[in-house]
């Protein structure tokens, strides 16, 4: 009797398991296998090449450029999004006038279609008649006018800028949510002890947001790994791979150069990085939960 009822319980998760197996597990396994072959993706002409794809990819310069971009992009966007998110959240938690309107406005960039906003930003950064350069020239700051997206040393920072524009609202919400959980008597006693707003923030709020710092960090790392839409619209990885990300690299190997084996190899490398990040996250999450238990 009990057996049978437990079996019917599985029926409730059967649909999600089927979707997961077909559309996530199968493609990953498929890519893992393909990474040991040479194949254009069309026709039966497929050759086993062992580890040759890994050797080719790791000896090429692009993968290292991609990793370099990933680290720079992750560091810049995560730090600034967290910082701005925290600042906004602490204004809202203190209920400054218009908080609920600002919360909605600041989250707006996260819901607009990336391809649409990408077009606007490409006109914004455009070298000759772009809005940014026009604006700088109007302020007589001509030397600051750059070729932005066409300049290999600046393009990645432009992408970072757009990403921060897009996702600061999201980290603001995460911080705001966990600040709501901090009991207000902590602030009352801090202010009785003579702590001002800034001190309350550094001594009370910041340490208690540990869990959220981790969440924002992990989501930011994974976001940087996935980063595709804005890069595709603005630079498609160029100039000279200055903005190449894992997703753009894989997409171009698969659908422009038709080198499925190499593309799958990059997928595997990206996947290993994602797994390391996730493992670190679980470790930290576990530890931060222990920390919370102790605090209670």
């Amino acid at each position, binding site marked *: 009797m009990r057996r049978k009822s437990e079996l019917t319980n599985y029926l409730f*998760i059967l649909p999600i398991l089927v979707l*997961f197996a077909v559309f996530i597990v199968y493609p990953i396994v498929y890519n893992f296998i393909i990474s040991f072959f040479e194949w254009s993706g069309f026709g039966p002409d497929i050759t086993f090449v062992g580890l040759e794809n890994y050797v080719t990819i790791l000896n090429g310069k692009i993968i290292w450029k991609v990793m370099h971009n990933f680290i720079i992009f992750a560091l810049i966007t995560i730090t600034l999004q967290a910082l701005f998110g925290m600042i906004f959240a602490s204004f809202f938690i*203190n209920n400054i006038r218009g908080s609920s309107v600002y919360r909605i406005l600041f989250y707006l960039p996260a819901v607009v279609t990336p391809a649409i906003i990408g077009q606007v930003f490409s006109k*914004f950064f455009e070298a000759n008649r772009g809005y940014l350069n026009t604006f700088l020239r109007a302020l007589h700051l001509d030397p600051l006018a750059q070729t932005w997206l066409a300049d290999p040393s600046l393009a990645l920072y432009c992408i970072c800028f757009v990403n921060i*524009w897009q996702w600061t609202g999201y980290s603001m919400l995460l911080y705001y949510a*966990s600040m709501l959980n901090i009991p207000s008597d902590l602030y009352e006693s801090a202010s009785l002890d003579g702590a001002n707003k800034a001190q309350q923030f550094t001594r009370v709020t910041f340490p208690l947001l540990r869990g959220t710092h981790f969440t924002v960090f992990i989501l930011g790392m994974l976001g940087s790994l*996935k980063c595709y839409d804005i890069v595709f619209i603005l630079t498609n990885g160029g100039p000279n791979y200055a903005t190449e990300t894992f997703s753009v690299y894989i*997409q171009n190997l*698969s659908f422009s150069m038709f080198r499925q084996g190499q593309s799958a190899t990059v997928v595997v490398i990206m996947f290993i990085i994602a797994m390391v990040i996730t493992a670190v996250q679980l470790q930290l999450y576990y530890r931060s939960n222990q920390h919370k238990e102790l605090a209670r």
Partner: protein
Amino acid sequence: MKNSKLYGGLGLFICLLSSAFFIFPLVIMVVRSFHSGGIANYSRVFDKYNLFVNFTTSVIVVGCTLAITAVVVSFAAFAFSKLRFRGSRALYYLLLSGMMVPVAATIFPLYQIVRGLGLINSPFSLIFPYATGSCCFNLLILKNYYDSIPNEMLEAANIDGANKLRTCWQVVMPVAKPGLAVVLMQTFLASWNELQMARIFIADTDVQPISVVPVRFAQTISSRDFTQEVMYAALVICLLPIVIFYIFAAKSLVNGLTTGAVKG
């Protein structure tokens, strides 16, 4: 607690400045769309493109994705929250790990499946991959929501002789509506805006979804009848559904995400 004048003033100043920062690209887009030609820019968009087909594709894709996600994730969240079975914890975390998987890691094999089924250029190529992503992404939110529903309610339903399916459908689901609403709003946004898969699976520009259409504008721009202003008008038209959605749903979405995040 009252804020000091200085703090309130500083906060207001920073928030106003930041508001300008966050909406400036949208303002540029709308203002420029009326330059040299005014409303005529908008009618020129329709002379050049039949966006109706693109909207239809988006609506089919998003509608089906929402329906599948709603059913699948509701059942799964109910099971992981309220039912006992062996391996449930391990399976739960396995499914959650699905949201860590980038599109790039699955796109070529999925393309092979789609091509094998003859679904290239069909809206149905995108529905199941999108629904899978949404289910994994939203399982956490909905399960947390179900956890907050007291078990006594289920026991009462059990005594009344309702089986598990009816308990899930008629007792728990109605209570969990606000949680499901947040899940569906997120799913709507994610599937309406998705670019990476949509661009590959539906390569035919006449039927591609709205999330991909703007890519084409960049290529046609600066032809005589498609000036930059007309392009901005076209972008505004493409963004309209999202704007309308956000006007009505912003408050519940933002509040829902906030409470969801707390429980997560």
